[in-house]
């Protein structure tokens, strides 16, 4: 099914076939994203970048994606400079923006903001992260990274490590992996376990999911080690934070017993979860993951805004 003209608010808005189509399209976008070929797929298209919260990677990779496809951006990078400060609702702001652009990319501090924006807008809305809620393009680029490394998304053993309670990327990623039949191994401190209802949802979807709090055991059989940031503010005191974050730090000694083809991923920015010494190993996939943001977002924009028959 085509994604032409569609809102992408949650990874749940995309079927397995649509995700596979987008990943195939993203692979074709790699030479364009590297600048070795050019495209006019978004010629005469204006994409509004409505970023009401600070973002470096996401906004710049979306802007790069639009430029690489020959389109133009309207950017709000500082919510303080908009009428929101004068008390204008997000709903009204989006109604206005949708009359100036062909699509809106939204980053907002409130969960559910993108769903509201999709209702307000007459143009497609792409969620670029709403609070601790959904971040579907991050999930797509995570899947693209795994697919590039293994040529498949089925039958992998994927360890999700760190803050599984609050980390928005892991909830969406686990949901997507469940659709592809990969094993999901949850490894977290007890206080940051995946919430019960998310676990129940994964089981309802027929996901192969298990918990393995011990990092060393989790790493042994893994194909993918997906590391997330453990945030200091989630802990009552500094000592507890240091103890927990120290036990989930990835360095070359942790990886000594890993499969040779294991890849280490991280949505970045990292804050000490992965030692710099890992960067030089063949396991490090996080910078490749950051690069793939551009071709994946190009594929998405081309699918939504390009000619209807060519939609992913």
């Amino acid at each position, binding site marked *: 099914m085509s994604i032409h003209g569609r809102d992408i608010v*949650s990874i749940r808005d995309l079927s397995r076939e649509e995700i596979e189509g987008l990943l195939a399209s993203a692979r074709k976008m790699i030479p364009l994203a590297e600048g070795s070929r050019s495209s006019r797929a978004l010629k005469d298209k204006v994409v509004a970048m409505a970023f009401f919260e600070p973002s470096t990677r996401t906004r710049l990779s979306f802007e790069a994606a639009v430029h690489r496809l020959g389109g133009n951006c309207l950017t709000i990078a500082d919510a303080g400079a908009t009428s929101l400060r004068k008390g204008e*609702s*997000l*709903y009204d702001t989006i109604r206005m923006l949708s009359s100036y652009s062909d699509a809106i990319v939204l980053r*907002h*501090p*409130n*969960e*559910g*903001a993108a*769903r*509201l924006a999709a*209702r307000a807008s007459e143009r497609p809305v792409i969620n670029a992260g*709403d*609070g*601790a*809620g*959904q971040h579907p393009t991050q999930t797509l680029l995570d899947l693209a990274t795994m697919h590039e490394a293994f040529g498949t998304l089925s039958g992998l053993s994927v360890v999700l490590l760190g803050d599984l309670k609050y980390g928005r990327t892991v909830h969406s990623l686990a949901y997507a992996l469940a659709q592809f039949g990969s094993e999901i191994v949850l490894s977290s401190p007890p206080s940051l376990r995946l*919430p019960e*209802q*998310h676990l129940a*949802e994964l089981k309802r979807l027929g996901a192969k999911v298990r918990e393995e709090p011990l990092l060393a055991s989790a790493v042994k059989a893994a194909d993918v080690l997906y590391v997330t940031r453990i945030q200091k503010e989630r802990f009552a005191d500094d000592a507890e934070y240091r103890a927990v974050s120290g036990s989930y730090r990835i360095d070359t000694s942790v990886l000594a017993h890993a499969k040779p083809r294991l890849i280490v991923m991280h949505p970045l920015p990292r804050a000490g979860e992965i030692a710099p010494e890992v960067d030089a190993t063949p396991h490090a996939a996080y910078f490749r993951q950051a690069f793939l943001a551009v071709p994946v977002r190009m594929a998405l924009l081309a699918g939504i805004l390009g000619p209807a028959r060519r939609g992913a």
Partner: protein
Amino acid sequence: MAVRELKITPIKNGTVIDHIGNGLALEVLRIIGAQSLDRESTVSVAMHVRSGKLGWKDIVKVEGVELSPRKVNAIALIAPTATISIIHDYKVREKRTVDLPSRVVGVLRCPNPNCISNQPEPLESEFEVVERRPVLLKCAFCERFVSDFLRQIH
């Protein structure tokens, strides 16, 4: 002739909510807004009543009031076994079971304080019914699951 014990008196016009789960009548009263009703609207409550179907049940009768669909939806959330009878001139004009729709709009607040539905935006709260027994809801905006929603009902 069998001796009938009348625990609460019949009403002339109004609504009878029967087969409420044991001990939930006070929640139903809160949804109805019993405290702010006109004093002509006599409210009778029977709790811990023997029931063939449920074992024990609660009953609420409200004189002179017909419930809005929204209030019926809210009752369906906490008392899915309830029946609602509309009484006219001491007779049951209509009797129906409460029916939880697939989406619940404008009835609950999302428990997530950071959800866009709790911000000053022109929208109504909205939940998808994921499971019915026991009821599990999901916010249509922030996708937060809600199972403990007694306190969230408007």
